[in-house]
């Protein structure tokens, strides 16, 4: 979330699309309701009339997977009716930038496309074709009148010209009347001083065009001036208690902690790596915050390797693993490689992929090909016990499995970070049950044992080195430490002093994540002592004199204490629910990201009542003389762009500080699938043509192709659109809710929701057990025949949609009859993220 949960109350219009917040983030509705009591409108756009829809002022149904068409139509409506915020759009977004001559869009393709040869990627673009024109200083050329035909604004207008209400309605199945009602209501937030917010979740990410669905809304938010303001923003409602933290700390192949880039093979030195990933702006008005990249990467290496990392060894840069430049190592790729017997050992740590991964049949078969697996969890589960799952003969499964009991969250101490980036400390209540242990203790002890083995090897003079494919390599006689095992340096040199009296100490790690001064350092005439905690990331250094395990958390645990444990319930002077002394938010305790866009060029808030920041410096003769901001921690904290008398300041800065040029990105030239979002049909879809272009599906989608990866589109065997979702009483694969009596009593079984019309068509009665099947598998479900689903009129035909929750699995309940919806879902995903398309696929529903 750019904003945070409480801030929803400040909104004038709340769009909930790709989310069913009332069901899945119930407490968020405390703030949706408060906003509504203050006059805000609530819009719910969803294929099904959900709990959220039941509270909404406007409900508009749409067919799964057609959100870009729906929102592209809104962009057109905003532009056609001049409802965009003109000052904001011209001054704060890249709408004024001039796009180079090579950019083009024709027949569903942007310029620079090459079809993929081997898969799983269907194709890729040469993004250099989409570059901006720059002047002789290297600054993008702009036309702030927005009239230049090659400006982003005009190209956008042209791009979305095709998205008429008629065409959009044909694609989405939403009535023209409903479309216009939504467009009109939401676009009203473009007025200066009004705020509209979007609450979305997996309903947007889980598509072959997921990233671009979100991007379409980002464009709308920029056009309406809704970024950075109270009650605005782009708000991803994250679904796991610490999925924000686990992302921040880079439990993802393509990142390092703090959103630093994963290292590629061509980044052969630390300098090459830093140069490659440090953006350079020539615009004096741009803060270009990522120019600090080397400070964060070097501080990270110091946290990884401590004293062993120094200038002479590139701070241990070469000890970290590197990905092939064109390689992908995502979730899909893991199970694809595992299925192809390329992976021997596997950790499923606090996760249940046998039920959570798309096309779980393939996942489960892949597990059979492992030599060993470690499964850490609170409960026995479908992943750890795959070897005695449905249809599996244990005597044929070689995989050794270690199942380790983890402690529950209330049995240990540590922090988690919520969707609004609030880091909050949790305390230990009871001791871990039985012989279970906190994950931290398990990790600490396991690595101690691994390290011991490598030490032992080194002490014994070492084994012969064995390289790839099991071939024996040469002994390394030069370096004593190098004698034990393969490349022992990173293991032996990893800083691993996180125990107190032999027990894992989360405070020690939290301090490491924050970072230390490793030498006496003087910054702006103030001396910071070696061994003290760094107050915030503006003080991190690129010379090895500071450490920080995750730079965005620098400031979370300082000499003033553990900021995440704070409980002061006093609000800030602007009284908009920031609660700046309650817990701690990254970055720098900033509660609303891009808050500098909530003020005009002179630093005055667009909204005087619900202001986020405002410039409070002194002035003399119409010029600012001192720099001071009130309210939230301001982005960057530089002077406003203009003086009170309207003259431009040379030291003023653009508000979007994390963007290279300082402008909000209406045109996104870094995306895999195009700088403007374009509607494509889901990989599996019910229509024979894309009404907007000759190209049916995202030409850059990733699609896997083993014998377990069957797909069926416009196939009479699978005539209905299927989607997955959650219910309030269960969580994710259900592993933390299915073993509980109360919650199981409330939601005991796998079900499929369908319209009365579809039920009549198939002769299905409410409550009957039915079979839902896709090209990949079948799952037994209890039929819920409901008015909540209605057939869609798409083109000249009728399209039915059904929905299944994905919380079940054969282990709990013990009948084994309630299986995972992910047995049905496809092995295809978004080209930017490789997130699977589990929200739109094709199924059949039949009586048993």
């Amino acid at each position, binding site marked *: 979330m750019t904003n945070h*949960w409480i801030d929803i109350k400040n909104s004038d219009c709340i769009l909930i699309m790709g989310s069913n917040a009332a069901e899945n983030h*119930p*407490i968020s509705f405390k703030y949706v309701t408060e906003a509504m009591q203050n006059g805000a409108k609530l819009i719910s756009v969803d294929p099904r009339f959900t709990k959220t829809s039941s509270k909404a002022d406007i409900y508009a149904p749409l067919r799964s997977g057609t959100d870009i068409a729906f929102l592209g139509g809104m962009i057109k409506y905003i532009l056609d009716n001049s409802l965009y915020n003109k000052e904001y759009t011209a001054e704060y977004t890249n709408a004024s930038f001039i796009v180079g001559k090579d950019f083009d869009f024709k027949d569903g393709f942007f310029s620079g496309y090459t079809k993929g040869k081997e898969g799983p990627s269907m194709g890729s673009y040469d993004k250099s074709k989409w570059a901006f024109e720059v002047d002789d200083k290297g600054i993008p050329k702009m036309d702030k009148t927005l009239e230049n035909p090659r400006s982003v604004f005009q190209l956008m207008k042209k791009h979305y010209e095709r998205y008429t209400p008629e065409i959009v309605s044909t694609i989405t199945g939403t009535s023209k009347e409903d479309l216009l009602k939504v467009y009109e209501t939401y676009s009203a937030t473009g007025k200066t001083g009004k705020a509209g917010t979007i609450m979305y979740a997996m309903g947007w990410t889980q598509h072959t065009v997921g990233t671009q669905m979100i991007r379409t809304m980002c464009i709308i938010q920029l056009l309406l001036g809704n970024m950075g303001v109270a009650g605005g923003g782009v708000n991803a*409602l994250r679904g*796991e*208690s610490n*999925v924000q933290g*686990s*992302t921040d*700390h880079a439990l*993802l192949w393509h990142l390092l*902690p703090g959103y630093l880039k994963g290292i590629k*093979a061509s980044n052969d030195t630390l300098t090459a790596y830093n140069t490659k990933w440090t953006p350079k702006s020539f615009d004096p008005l741009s803060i270009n915050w990522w120019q600090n990249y080397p400070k964060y990467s070097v501080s990270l290496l110091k946290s990884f390797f401590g004293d062993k990392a120094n200038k002479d060894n590139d701070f241990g840069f*070469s000890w970290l693993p*590197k990905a*092939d430049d064109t390689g992908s*190592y995502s*979730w899909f790729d893991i199970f694809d490689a595992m299925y192809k017997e390329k*992976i*021997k*050992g*596997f950790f499923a*740590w*606090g*996760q249940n992929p046998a039920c959570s991964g798309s096309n779980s049949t393939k996942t489960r078969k892949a597990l059979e090909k492992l030599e*060993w697996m470690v499964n850490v969890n609170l*409960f026995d589960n479908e992943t750890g016990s795959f070897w005695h799952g449905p249809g599996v003969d*244990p005597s044929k499964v070689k995989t*050794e*499995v270690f199942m380790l009991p983890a402690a*529950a969250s*209330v049995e*240990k101490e540590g922090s*988690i970070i919520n969707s609004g980036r609030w880091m909050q400390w*949790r*305390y*230990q209540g*009871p001791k871990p*049950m*039985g012989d*279970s*242990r906190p*994950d*931290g203790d398990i990790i600490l002890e*396991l*690595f101690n*044992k*691994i390290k011991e*083995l490598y030490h032992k090897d080194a002490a014994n003079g070492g*084994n012969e080195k064995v*390289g790839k494919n099991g071939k024996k390599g040469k002994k390394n006689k030069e370096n004593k430490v190098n004698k034990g095992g*393969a*490349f022992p340096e*990173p293991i032996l040199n990893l*800083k691993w002093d996180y125990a107190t009296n032999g027990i*894992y100490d989360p405070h020690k790690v939290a301090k490491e994540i924050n970072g230390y001064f490793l030498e006496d350092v003087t910054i702006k005439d103030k001396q910071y002592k070696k061994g003290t905690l760094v107050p915030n990331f503006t003080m991190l250094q690129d010379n090895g004199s500071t450490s920080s395990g995750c730079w965005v958390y620098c400031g979370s645990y300082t000499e003033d204490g553990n900021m995440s444990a704070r409980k002061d319930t006093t609000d800030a002077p602007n009284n908009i629910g920031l609660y700046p002394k309650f817990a701690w938010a990254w970055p720098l305790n900033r509660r609303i990201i891009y808050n500098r866009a909530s003020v005009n060029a002179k630093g005055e808030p667009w909204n005087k009542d619900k202001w986020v920041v405002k410039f409070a410096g002194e002035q003399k003769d119409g010029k600012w003389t001192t720099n001071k901001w009130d309210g939230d921690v301001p982005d960057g904290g530089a002077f406003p762009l203009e003086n009170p008398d309207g003259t431009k300041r040379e030291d003023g800065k653009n508000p979007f500080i994390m963007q290279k040029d300082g402008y909000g990105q209406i045109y996104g030239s870094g995306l895999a699938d195009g700088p403007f979002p374009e509607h494509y049909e889901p990989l599996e879809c019910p229509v024979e043509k894309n009404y907007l272009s000759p190209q049916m599906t995202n030409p850059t989608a990733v699609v896997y192709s083993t014998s377990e990866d069957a797909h069926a589109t416009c196939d009479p065997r699978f005539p209905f659109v299927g989607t997955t979702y959650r219910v309030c*009483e269960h969580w994710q694969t259900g592993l933390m*809710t299915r073993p509980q009596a*109360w*919650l199981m009593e409330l939601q005991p079984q796998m079900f499929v929701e369908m319209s009365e019309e579809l039920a009549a068509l198939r002769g299905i009665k409410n409550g009957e057990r039915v079979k839902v099947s896709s090209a990949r598998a079948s799952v037994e479900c209890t039929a819920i025949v409901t008015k909540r689903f209605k057939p869609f009129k798409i083109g000249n035909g009728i399209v039915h949609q059904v929905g299944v929750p994905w919380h079940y699995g054969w282990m709990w309940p013990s009948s084994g009859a309630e299986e995972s919806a992910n047995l049905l879902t496809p092995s295809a995903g978004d080209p930017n993220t490789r997130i699977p398309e589990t929200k739109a696929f094709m199924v059949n529903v039949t009586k048993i």
Partner: protein
Amino acid sequence: MDLNRREFIQVTSATAAGLAVSGLGFDLMPVKAHAQMLKTKYAKETTTICCYCAVGCGAIVHTSQRGDGRVINIEGDPDHVINRGALCPKGASIKQLVENENRLIRPMYRAPYSDKWQAVSWDWALENIAKKVKETRDATFETKNSKGQVVNRTTAIASVGSAAMDNEECWTYQAMLRSLGLVYVEHQARI
């Protein structure tokens, strides 16, 4: 009587319950009030944040300081600025997640081709996992890729998880995995 906010709520709700039954001809209020106090009076009180979705609601955990030392009750924290004491059905059931007879309470091992689990000690489990990691890593470690670029990695071990871990655990876990040379490092955020 010096009451903090929570005690005040408990006492007043007990009072309301007492009044409701006073029509029976005897006053249960003192008994009810005592029962309410018993629940938490001798318990350790800690705060937590809900382990389900990412709204980040606060809850109060009462743990027995006598007997088995287990959780007596978990309820919404009225002093938490986000949820102000409210919890959804999942959050209100955290006690049943923790105090659950289905929980794993000892390390288990399944041998190749076996049809059963066997209980093992932590030491045995971790030592054997460490050996597997080292064997696999040493046998598959790639110093260079097919293009001859230095990569220092193994692609024969993969990891998924976990958004259910604390920040500090996530950081420690990724540090371990990266030092081992894993590039197949993923978790819930990808799906």
